């Protein structure tokens, strides 16, 4: 006789989300820099901002309140509304 087991998982296959295509150029693209708030993340992002500025790009800066927790949904929505691409970084 077949054995029946009950599924211990949440029974939802993980949502398979294909990443967006990489932008071929940053011309006219709104760029966000996200600091996850680990120590020295801003050092890395400051340098990235300089390098992007040399290409004539201005960026918007964002920071998670703490690296220990997921990003607040409001911040995620804000970034999605204000940016076309985002660079998330930590240094440590």
């Amino acid at each position, binding site marked *: 006789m077949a*054995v029946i*087991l009950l599924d211990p998982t949440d*029974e939802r296959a993980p949502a398979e989300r294909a990443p967006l295509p990489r932008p071929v150029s940053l011309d006219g693209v709104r760029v966000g820099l996200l600091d996850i708030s680990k120590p020295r993340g801003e050092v890395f992002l400051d340098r990235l901002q300089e390098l992007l500025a040399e290409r004539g790009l201005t960026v918007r800066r964002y920071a998670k309140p703490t690296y220990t927790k997921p990003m607040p949904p409001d911040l995620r929505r804000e970034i999605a509304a204000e940016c076309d691409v985002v660079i998330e970084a930590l240094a440590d």
Partner: protein
Amino acid sequence: MRPATDLPRDGLVAVVKQDCPTCRLVEPVLAQLDGVSVYSQDDPAFPASVAGVRDDTALDVSVALDIRTVPTLLRFADGGEVGRTEGWLRGAWEELSGVAGLGEGLPDHRPGCGSRTADPEVADELLVRTRGETLRSRRIELALEDEIEAAYERGWSDGLPVVPPTPARVLRMLDGTSHAPAEVVAVVPPNLAEATVEKVAVNAVLAGCRPEHLPVVLAAVEAACTTEFNAHGLLATTYAVGPAIVVNGPVAREIGMNAGGNALGQGNRANSTIGRALQLLIRNVGGGRPGEVDRAALGHPGKVGFCFAEDEAGSPWEPLSVARGLAPGTSAVTVFAAEGPRHIADQVSRTPGSLVRSLAAGLRGVYHPKVPTGFDATLVVCPEHARVFADAGWDRTRFEAELAEALLLDPDELERGAGGIEEGIPAGGETGRVPKFRPGGLLVVHAGGGAGKFSTVIGGWAGGPRGSQPVTREVDRWR
């Protein structure tokens, strides 16, 4: 409720099995009773001397009548049961049947046998047949697979074998709580999936729990899935931490938890399986798996499950749950972020002032000896150490205050470069002495065996609202 069977509306009903000597003994009595409806659990040809024996080998009537013993004689009137007697008792049978002089030559009484519904090989099937429809989990049918290997292949295991969660085992586990299987207990990180009582029970079966452990598991799940505890952060960190559970109150003794010798070790089913059930739930329902959202650089063996009870009976201090605001005698769990435990030995100190400094020295190493305040810890004080403080009249409040005082660190020793160690706090950042732990960042628990002048440090993780905070929840509401 009248069961959907062919039971008569009025008259006598007897349930028997051929395998039972008492049933065979009363065969002539059944033949004496006009119009009795006899149901046979095992052999429809028995009793041969009674006409029209009804076949109950599928046990539907026996289940509907909740038969525990055979023979059972019942009387029905207007479709309802008005009386029953179990085994052979001449007086009771005569009264129920209204027939005098039954069973001439038989002894006055003879106990019956267990109903076939209680046979282990049919009990599971009956349990599933009668209550299986209350379960909502996806049913996975295994054809030719070994069931334990199947659980591994589907990713349900922490690396150790799991108990296969058959519907019968899950139904028996659910007997450990009065809560409905569909009730949502918590939203489990990292995937923020709802865990029902049933899903907690399925994972408790996997972990090896007994039904009486389930209320403790449910309370631990409730506690671990709070914003304050931040199980997501604890899982996702590269640091070597996982959730640990300390159990307080009468439930610890009721379910046989170990708070004494080897309390933090192996060998006690409740200790070993309750913590494992929480971790398997986070893995299976929450989707938290090593190498995926769990980014630990090393982890530690207690991440399989880490649960123990406080030794309240032998403690000179109020229980942790009481210190955290619950009434004495309340069964509770406290979840906290935990590294692996590490012993501190001091076999010499006989004065509380000396011993508290030893314990402080051991605690200073949490995270890094030169880094204060960020990380929490738990101190498990063993009886031989606790006695030194008890003999000096130090209550929990005094002990914790003296410990905090001994953990005020000189900033000169903490600065980067001090002691030839680059790690530390920025130079000149602190002027006064710096507390090693934030307020509320050090839990104190009493546990352990009677011999050994040791205590144990369980390092924690980033503490407070920006990390993980210990959370206490009552157990009794989950019974």
